[in-house]
Structure formats: C-alpha cells, structure tokens
C-alpha cells in the first residue's frame, strides 16, 4: 500500500522499476522508498518482470503483463483498460495477460468503478503510461544499438532499426526500466489504432465458464470462519436485548454477539451510509451451520427514535437527523402527493413561465411516480476480513477501495499502510457496492473473533438491508399556444428522501419559458446510487411526457425532439445547458435511420422512442412491442449510442444490451415496498426480475462513429429504456402508464 500523499505529481509515478516474478517491487525506484528493501536480491532471479510503470510489466521472454487499476463488476474494464495501454505500448494483444491491480491510489490512480467513469478517467493516463513505456523501450534499443532514438520504430512488441537490427521488447525491458521517464509523449492518432476499436474477448471469459474462484464469495483462507448478521426487522428499529444461548448451542458455532458498527458521533464519510447500527452476529465454521444457528437467535427490538449522524460528504461536514418513524410505502405515496402541492425549491428558471402558462391555449399536466428499487446484485454483499492488532487484510467485491480506507483506519485504529484491500471480481455492482458498510462490518467481526472471517449476506439480508434507489415523483406541465407551439415547460420533482431533478438537462435550453423545482421528504430508508441515479427516473417521466406533448402538437416524436435540439443549438436559452445538442440529435437520427422509423415494415410493432444524456454519453432507443399471450412484450430494440471512441465494440454492445434488458425489467416489474419499516420483498419469489422469456429476441446496438475521447457506457443506455417502453406501451394499449412498475397496472387493465 502506497497511499501516502507526498505531493508527487502523477507523471512521476510513471517511474520505472524492476520487480521479481512474484510482483514484488524493488528499491531501484523511488516509489519503493515506502517499502522495506529486503527483497533486493530478487534482482538476480532469472525470470524477472521489468515494471515500466504501475500498469506495465514485461518479461524477458516478451510476455506482457498489464495491470487493471479499476475494480471489475461486469463492465469489462479488465479488458478495456489494458487494451488502452496495449495500444500505445504497441504490443501484440496475444502476448498480453491481465491482472487486477492491488489497491494503491498513488501508483494506480483513483481506482473507482462507478459513474460510468472507468474508461473516461483512465483514457489519457493509460495512453500516457503505454506511450511512456514504449518510448523508454525505444531509448533502450537506441542506446544498445548506438543509433538515434528517432530511428527506432516499434511494431507489435518488436523494436527495429533500418540497419536491420531488431529486438523484442522483452530483450530491452530490463534496460528500459532503468531509464528516466520521458517528459514529452507522442500519442497515436486514432486512425492508427490496431487494438482499440477492435473487439477483444473478455480476458476472464475462460475463468468464468470454468467456474474459477473469481468472486468475493469464493475467496477463502485456511481457518476462515463464516459470519452472518441479523439486522433489525424494520427501518427505524434497533436492538433492545438478545439471548445468544440457543444459537450458541448449535453445531459449528463459535460466537454470537452484538456489534455496534459506528460509535456515537463517529464521523462518517459520504459512502459510509449504513442502515442499521446495531447488529447481531453469528460466527461459525460453515455457511449452513451459521444459517441454521441464526434462526435460533432470540432478540427483542425497539424503535430507534431519531438518530443524529455526522457525515462528511460532497457538501462538507454536516449533521444529519435520520427520522425514527416506521414508514410504509402507501403512506409515503400519499405524503408525496401532499408535498407536490407545496411550494418547492426553485432550481432553474428561464423567461416568464408563470405568464406563459397563464396565457396558454392548452396546458398538459401529467404526474409520474416510481418506487424504491433494490440493486439485487447477483452476488450478495460479502467481504473477507482478517484483522489483527498490527494489520488488516480485506478481500471482496467493492467499487471504490479508496473511499473505505480512511473509515477502516479510524474504525480499526490502524494506519492506512497497514490495511490491505484486495479487489475481487464483483457479481454485479450497479452502485450498491460503492457503500462499504459490509466491509467495515466484516473487519470489526474479524477483530472481535480474532480470526479470518467471511461476512456473508443471504439474499434476504441483501434485499432487506439495502441502499436503495429512492422513491420519486415528478409533475410535468407543458404550455402550448393557439398554433400548438410549445411556449413553456415546468417540472416539479420530489422524492423520498431526495428529488430527482437535473435542472440543466434537456429540454432546458430549448424552451423560452422554463421552470424546474425540487422538494424532498426525509426518511430512514437508506438510499444511494443506483445505475444512473435520478436519471433513471427522469428519463422515464420526461421522455414519456415529451411523447405526449409531441402528440398534442401533432408532431412525430423524433421530429419534435430534433426541432427542440435545433433550437437549443442555434439559439439556446440560458447558459448552463449541460448537453451537446448535436450529439443528442446524432443518436436520435442514428436510431431513426437504423430502425426504419416511419418507413413501411414495422407495422406489426407498437413502437416507442426515447433518448437521454447522462454521465457524459448519449443514448437513444426504439423499442418494438408486440402482444404475446395477451401481454405486451418487447420483442426487439434498436439502440444508438454516442460515447466517443468505442474501445472494445463487442463488449460495449453487450453492456448496452444488458442495460436495455435491465431497463425493460425494472420498467415492468421493479419495486421494493415497505410496511411499518419492513421491506415487503425479501427474495426473488416476490421481487420480480426480468427473465429469459421476457427479454427481447434481438437488441441491435449502433454507435456514432467519431474520434472524441471515450466516455462511459455502464449507465447512459439505461435511463431512456424506461421512457421508450412507456411510449410503446401507449401504442400497444391505447392508454398511458404513469406509475412504475407498469405490470401491476397492466394486470388490472388486461
């Protein structure tokens, strides 16, 4: 762990060093001055890797090892990030192996998977890392051959000079590792790419299909114990008393105890969100034994009352009061309707919307709602921890090891360099694993029982102890004049416990009179990022509202959006419009053309279109719905994306297809409800997830071709799916659906 921040600039981390085949760093680099020097003799090992920087290691026999800095949760960064390095390094992809990096924010950057950021934030640093190493290899060859470095060229891992000399990278790597890191780098022109933009197979594909132990739940060590927690039965409850006797009598059980996660007044980081502070813990030898013993726990619970938390988040340190009531979704829905009538916080205002609405010939007003959603990562929350008085080793699935480290350091009273966090492959993330309470729980449990421990949530634990997508509503209003021109637009959105509004997104900037407002209702139901936070509701509501407005204006829904975008481009209203109208229009035009929109051939389908911009990428979908066995079914989907350069096209396509399926599933079925603080869905028997037979037969994905620096794909394709489904549903059933999920209402009308 080299997490000291010593004021070194990032470029100096592109420092070369030699390491042994075991991956140990040697003292030849100043970076290793943070480490003990006792491995220096490893230099003499015959097969040493030369480490040209944190991301690149080259073996004498020309094997190339590239390090993936960011955790992998299915977005395929373990393939796409090393592809970027390999491109600039100029090696043959066949010779590349990839390893997940250690947690080391100094050598490997932010190491955060989320916000569709991985490729976007690593694009430049990884290109530089590859280009710097390539330049050092050329320099090494130039010195060895006594020729000017400008005359040394590379191709697929081979250095050559016009005089006929050639050498594989491996032959020059040890020398290159001793050279200074170049200051000026020349990066390839996109037209010369040979790896980026060419589909490469998932580097862990083989391990996945053979069942290799890749995931946190698969991680085990000698003598490891299994731990499970029993959390209070409802939000707003805490432990009163418990009797461990019966559980302790069960076979294989080592310990039963209560655990307080954070002491009173503990200063939480922005991602230390936790639902329950008082936990009962059962520790034993095997999963099945612990599951059975947990059933024997005798516990009394009591109302927690209001809880004061101290949280240092993006807006600095503040005290947050978490209300103590036992909440129910039905009552929350009624409360939202009340709140929606009250004055709200103005988030953006252009022109004079009040006057425009007053003078309108026609006003369209619609209200949309959506429930809490559980992430339901296929692999439930879990973490391995081995904590002693001297150090801590943790291993498991999480999206941002750097965020939890300061918390752990405080909780365990250990300096950061004594805490090692290993990143396993994650069985899904969707934002849930940015919240690391389960890791802290595992660490405290291990410290208490003085043994290596795997904390495991059952599916029921995972679903009922969630950091959910909030419950949202929004009321949209559009004003049309007598000629059916759109003259004003108003959105007022709210939620439990946050509102969904992004005030500067489309259609802001395209309409003279515009008002966005937000309000929120506090709650003790814990919420957090869920694949495209807020956008995943907005795109549903706004895009189906726009569909309705277009219809009222007698316009084709794509033409209507393109006209608004044209306005936003040529004569934008306001200054802070955080989208590029050209790129937004680009995906709409692409999906229109690829799907044959408005052309003969699609009559058998109810078609719905939607587009959205979030997380720096643009997405548009057209869903084609049919009626199958009396039920609306999305049979095929056309998608268009603009995320700049597409690093790994086939994997990018997979990601978009997955987002489409996820969107259809959540639009129809996704819902988590509460009664008296208790989640009413506890497993996949009553929380409905989309299945094979409900998934489209075909999802055709197209990318806008340009040379813009790449942006992310994990989130952007997801939100507009909801809107496209809603709009197709209208065509299919002849009526609009305003409340997600759609299936319960559909079952009433079918």
């Amino acid at each position: 762990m080299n997490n000291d921040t010593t004021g070194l600039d990032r470029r100096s981390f592109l420092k070369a060093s030699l390491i042994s085949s075991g991956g140990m760093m040697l003292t030849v680099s100043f970076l290793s001055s943070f480490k003990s020097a006792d491995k220096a003799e490893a230099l003499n090992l015959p097969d040493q890797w030369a480490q040209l920087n944190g991301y690149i290691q080259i073996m004498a026999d020309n094997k190339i090892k590239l390090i993936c800095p960011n955790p992998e949760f299915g977005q395929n960064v373990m393939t796409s990030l090393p592809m970027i390095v390999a491109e600039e390094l100029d090696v043959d992809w066949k010779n590349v192996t990839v390893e997940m990096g250690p947690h080391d924010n100094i050598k490997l950057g932010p190491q955060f998977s989320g916000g569709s950021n991985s490729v976007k934030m690593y694009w430049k640093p990884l290109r530089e890392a590859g280009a710097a190493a390539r330049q050092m290899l050329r320099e090494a060859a130039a010195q060895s051959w006594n020729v000017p470095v400008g005359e040394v060229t590379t191709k697929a891992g081979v250095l050559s000079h016009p005089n006929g000399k050639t050498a594989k990278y491996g032959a020059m790597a040890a020398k290159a590792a001793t050279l200074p890191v170049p200051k000026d780098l020349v990066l390839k022109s996109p037209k010369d790419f040979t790896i980026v933009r060419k589909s490469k197979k998932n580097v862990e594909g083989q391990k996945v299909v053979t069942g290799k132990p890749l995931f946190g739940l698969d991680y085990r060590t000698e003598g490891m114990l299994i731990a499970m927690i029993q959390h209070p039965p409802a939000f707003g409850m805490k432990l009163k008393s418990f009797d461990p006797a019966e559980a302790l009598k069960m076979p294989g059980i080592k310990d039963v105890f209560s655990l307080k996660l954070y002491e009173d007044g503990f200063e939480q980081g922005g991602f230390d969100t936790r639902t329950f502070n008082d936990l009962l813990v059962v520790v034993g030898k095997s999963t099945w034994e612990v599951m059975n013993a947990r059933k024997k726990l005798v516990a009394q619970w009591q109302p927690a009352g209001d809880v004061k938390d101290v949280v240092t988040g993006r807006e600095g340190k503040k005290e947050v009061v978490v209300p103590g009531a036992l909440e129910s979704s039905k009552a929350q829905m009624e409360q939202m309707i009340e709140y929606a009538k009250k004055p709200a916080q103005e988030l953006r205002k252009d022109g004079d919307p009040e006057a425009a609405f007053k003078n309108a010939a026609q006003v369209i007003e619609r209200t949309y709602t959506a429930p809490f959603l559980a992430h339901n990562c296929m692999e439930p929350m879990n973490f391995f921890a081995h904590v002693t008085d001297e150090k801590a080793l943790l291993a498991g699935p999480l999206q941002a090891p750097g965020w939890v480290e300061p918390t752990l350091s405080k909780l365990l009273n250990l300096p950061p360099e004594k805490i090692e966090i290993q990143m396993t492959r994650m069985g899904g993330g969707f934002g849930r694993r940015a919240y690391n309470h389960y890791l802290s729980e595992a660490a405290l449990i291990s410290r208490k029982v003085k043994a290596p421990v795997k904390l495991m949530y059952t599916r029921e634990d995972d679903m009922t102890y969630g950091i959910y997508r909030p419950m949202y509503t929004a009321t949209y209003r559009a004003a049309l004049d007598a000629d059916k021109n759109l003259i004003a637009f108003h959105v007022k959105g709210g939620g439990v416990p946050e509102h969904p509004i992004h005030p500067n997104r489309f259609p802001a900037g395209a309409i003279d009179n515009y008002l966005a407002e937000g309000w929120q209702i506090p709650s003790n139901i814990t919420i957090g990022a869920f694949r495209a936070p807020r956008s995943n509701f907005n795109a549903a509501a706004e895009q189906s509202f726009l569909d309705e407005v277009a219809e009222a204006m007698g316009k084709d829904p794509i033409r209507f959006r393109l006209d608004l975008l044209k306005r936003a481009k040529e004569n934008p209203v306001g200054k802070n419009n955080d989208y590029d109208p050209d790129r937004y229009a680009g995906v709409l035009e692409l999906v229109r053309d690829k799907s044959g929109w408005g052309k003969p051939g699609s009559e058998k389908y109810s078609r719905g279109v939607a587009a959205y911009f979030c997380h720096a990428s643009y997405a548009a979908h057209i869903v084609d719905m049919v009626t199958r066995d009396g039920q609306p079914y999305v049979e095929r989907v056309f998608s268009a994306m603009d995320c700049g350069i597409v690093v790994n096209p086939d994997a990018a396509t997979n990601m978009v297809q997955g987002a489409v399926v996820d969107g259809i599933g959540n639009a129809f079925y996704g819902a988590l409800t509460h009664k008296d603080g208790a989640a009413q869905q506890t497993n996949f028997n009553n929380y409905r997830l989309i299945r094979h037979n409900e998934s489209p037969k075909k999802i055709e994905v197209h990318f806008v071709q340009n040379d813009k620096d790449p942006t992310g794909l994990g989130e952007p394709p997801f939100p507009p799916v909801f809107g496209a489904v809603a709009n197709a549903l209208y065509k299919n059933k002849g009526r609009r659906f305003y409340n997600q999920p759609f299936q319960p209402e559909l079952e009433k009308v079918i």
Partner: protein
Amino acid sequence: MATFNLKINGKTRAVDVDPATPMLWVLRDHLDLPGTKYGCGIAQCGACTIHLEGNAVRSCQLPVSAVGKASVTTIEGLSEKADHPVQKAWLDHDVAQCGYCQAGQIMTAAALLKRNPNPTDEEIEAQMSGNICRCGTYVRIKEAVKSAARK
C-alpha cells in the same frame, strides 16, 4: 453429522456434514468447488445449478442425504479443458458481464441440449427462464445456446 461418499466430477469424495446440508454448501464450503454459485437459496435464480445424473438440478434445494450414488457434475467438471460445446459457445459470444450467474446458465444449457439437441427458441426460453441474469445477458445466452446446438 454423517459421512457421505459422493460421486462428483468423476471422483469419489467423502464429506462429514449434517445430512440436511444443501449440496450447494457441501460443494462450496466442504469440497472446495466454488464454481457453483449462491443467488437466492430458494430455487428462484438457478445460479446453483448442477447436474445430477445429467439432469439440471438446483443444488440449494438438494440435501446431501438425497444424492446417494447419483453422479454429480459441477461447472468445474463439465469438461476437461473448457471445451464443452456450451462453454465454447459462451466464449465465442463473449456472453459474460459480471459472470456470476453464468456457471448456472451453462449447466442449465448443457443439460437442455443433451436432452434436446435442437431446441426451438421457445424451448430455450422456457428451459432457461429459471436462470436469472441480473446483468441482462439473455440475448447472448440465447444465441450461444443456439450455436452450441449446431455443433
């Protein structure tokens, strides 16, 4: 506790466990075969699918005491060299996203093709619908099953 001699992936393996222990946990905790995954524990997701005498079963619902002499195959034993047609098709179509559900999907697909080498789209959907993929790789799974069937 009781001792069971199980036939797993062609080998006999002995375990000493509570007879009610589901095979899922016997495999994962006691036999170091973690390829079989836990997803729900209540027969809803298919992540734990294994073969019992060639048929796909949910190992979370199969007590070790019910296995007897039946031969068990897990993802680790589906092929020697990752060359079962279904595994190959999965790689060709680069199906996996997070990959967590895929062992279960592959085991279900392999059992399906053994019984029905040329399934229709509807048969594939019907047979595979017990296997949830939270990442939404269904379109690719369907394509992969079809190309494995052609092999």
